[in-house]
């Protein structure tokens, strides 16, 4: 497949994953704001912004905890920033616009149904602003938008020929997911130290909403409940989201998908690209080293998460060098094939 086409599909995967993640984060934040005290809402915003590695317009989150009215105005502004703000390329609208633009440029390799789905999703929110969605059940907007992304991947899964195009779409999606989840976990531990008062809580206590909501954001609450009953032990939650190979939003699962996609696109090539080696090493580190961590040494765990996050970001550079932006002189002349 033409490198530029593959690159387009890769970015469609990344942008849509990012859009979906933001939808889930904001939908959860809107839930939090319904019934939680102001200081908790404030912390939750910090996790959200930290997890997206974003600094709100104006430099930092305000901490005007005494003023509930101000808090609401703040929520309006922050939600706008994350959803529609033209200055934020990673806003949900920005992500959909970018995904669509990438699709437009490589439309000859994007299935008709996929294009129609993405194009409609974009037109549905292109002309909206925060005031249009804020007054009446704003959560609906995020569910609807997430549904559009899910529909896209559903169509992709059912329609796409499993050639390089499919694998690069998957690659983008799961590279992005590994980065997003590792950043979210780092932010979680920064805002809610696991060794704090909620650790080792008794089963009969009300579930700690901060850890519960983390699971909810990652669509992991039900699976966690089946495995660990309803005891939201921070260490167990982090472990679940980092290392469970069966959880679709765990880092380990995402790396597994990245590895599979890289194997598929490198098939028949003499060398496994650096990207494949890096993904393999990371997965192995999670499988073999992560279980040996000292759950009490939170600093070490945070350092490990930082390392994972950094490696996930490097994956992108490796993929780019191997498949997309190699120089004319570096390119080996390939066999005739699809």
């Amino acid at each position: 497949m033409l490198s530029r086409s593959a690159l387009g599909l890769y970015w469609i995967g990344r942008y849509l994953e990012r859009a979906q993640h933001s939808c889930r984060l904001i939908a959860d934040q809107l839930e939090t704001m319904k019934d939680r005290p102001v200081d908790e809402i404030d912390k939750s915003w910090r996790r959200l912004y930290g997890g997206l590695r974003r600094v709100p317009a104006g430099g930092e989150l305000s901490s005007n905890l005494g003023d509930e009215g101000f808090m609401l105005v703040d929520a309006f502004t922050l939600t706008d920033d994350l959803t529609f703000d033209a200055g934020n390329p990673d806003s949900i609208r920005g992500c959909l616009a970018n995904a669509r633009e990438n699709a437009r440029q490589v439309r000859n390799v994007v299935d008709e149904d996929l294009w129609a789905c993405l194009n409609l999703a974009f037109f549905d929110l292109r002309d909206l602003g925060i005031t249009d969605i804020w007054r009446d059940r704003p959560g609906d907007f995020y569910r609807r938008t997430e549904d559009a992304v899910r529909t896209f991947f559903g169509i992709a899964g059912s329609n796409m020929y499993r050639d390089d195009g499919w694998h690069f779409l998957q690659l983008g999606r799961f590279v992005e997911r590994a980065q997003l989840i590792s950043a979210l976990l780092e932010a979680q531990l920064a805002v809610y130290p696991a060794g704090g008062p909620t650790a080792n809580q008794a089963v009969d206590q009300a579930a700690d909403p901060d850890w519960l909501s983390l699971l909810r954001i990652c669509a992991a609450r039900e699976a966690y409940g089946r495995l660990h009953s309803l005891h939201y032990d921070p260490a167990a939650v982090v472990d679940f989201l980092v290392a469970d190979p069966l959880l679709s939003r765990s880092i380990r699962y995402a790396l597994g998908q990245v590895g599979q996609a890289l194997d598929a696109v490198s098939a028949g090539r003499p060398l496994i690209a650096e990207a494949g080696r890096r993904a393999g090493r990371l997965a192995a580190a999670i499988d073999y080293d992560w279980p040996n961590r000292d759950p009490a040494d939170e600093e070490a765990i945070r350092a490990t998460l930082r390392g994972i996050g950094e490696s996930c970001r490097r994956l992108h550079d490796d993929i780019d060098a191997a498949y997309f932006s190699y120089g004319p002189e570096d390119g080996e002349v390939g066999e005739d094939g699809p």
Partner: protein
Amino acid sequence: MTEADSGAPPPEEGHLFAGYETDPVFYDEMFDTGGSPWDHCRELWAALGETPPDALATMQERAERSFLHEGITFSVYGEEGAQERIIPIDIVPRIVAAEHWDFLERGLRQRLEALNLFLADIYGPGRAIADGVSPADLVRGCPQLRDAMQGVDVPHGAYVSVCGTDLVRTHDGFLVLEDNLRVPSGVSYMLANRAAVKTSLRDAFRRHRVRGIEHYGRLLRRTLAELSPHGGPDPTIVLMTPGVYNSAFYEHMFLAREMGVELVQGADLVARDGFVYMRTTGGLRRVDVIYRRIDDDFLDPLTFRPDSVLGTPGLFDAYRLGNVTIANAPGTGVADDKSVYAYVPDIIRYFLNEEPLLANVETRLCRDPDGLEYTLDNLDKLVVKEVGGSGGYGMLVGPHATAAERADFAEKIRAAPENYISQPTLDLSRAPCLTEDGAAPRHVDLRPFVLRGKETRMVPGAFCRVALTPGSLVVNSSQGGGGKDLWVLSG
């Protein structure tokens, strides 16, 4: 309609054609001068009359919405940067009778054959100029002449492998308005309009036995494959686009998909050791045929415009060595120059020893003193065009211009007469279009596409353009024109 005594009952109030007025000056594509539908249009006329006008309006809206949703758009420049727009469709098809089409097709094949021979001669022995068929200084001074093409061996002599000729119809028959021999576009709208109209008017479509055009992509691919430099089976064909900001990008994408070939930009191609490769996820892969939709100037900065960032350095050398085919060949623009156009009938006689089947529009070159004088004296009656212009830019429609606009234009002509030609304002035929007040006549032209590889091929269809503004003669998409489906009937 003015007269209803020649077969058709007078339409009732509220009927789609109730307010339709034919004008004896203009050939009408649906009605004869007596106001009765032509025999070959009768089924459609009846079907349209039986369909409530608001149902037709709904069909039209639905078609245009589907264009937007499917991204069947082109980009317009100006106003606020580039905007994605659809080409509005008029849902009422234009019908061409079988015998009219047969004549048209023969005429188009003849014309393209002669133009390809003319190009081979210009970039080869130069007999035609030596024999005075067209003035030497006209050809040698043409900005579209590409010296680099001298002596290049072009497979099957197919300099122009995709031609999109603009034709109009008057009471005198079809006239060629211009030959588009460089990178003609519009074929995707021909196919999109067909898809939309076929769905909306399926009964009439079936009854009329309309000939299919959907195999255009297949014909194009076959044509391009025949141009492969090594002649082996299954050559690697790519479509080269300037990118997403080009106004015809949708079409580039569409054709690449129809043909099942990669859509490449200059940066995707690498010229190395006299061959051209594309950069794939599996390394560099050799390319045999490039269907380029990018102008000559931007193909290769080493040979043509050095400041171009759209092209591929070294591409032309690989072409000259015969290791890759570029279609259409560089330099074909010399044969569709609006001054050279005036000589095409002579070119046909010279190379084919036949009378041209399709007539030219009477054309005066302002580079000739007589032509200049006539043009300036009759600006209010003439259409004046820039010789290198296209897309309806840089032209004056005398009768529709104000005195001040004409005076301004006269200045431009005097400053550089060789840049202009003039033609009489044509009585372009009209076809019924859907308006808020029922059907109304609008001026139309048509652009059929002729393909030339080892042999010449055509689909029986054309992109029919329509000037949606009442009375307007400008049908260009960039100037507010729309499209219509064109039905060529089986014999």
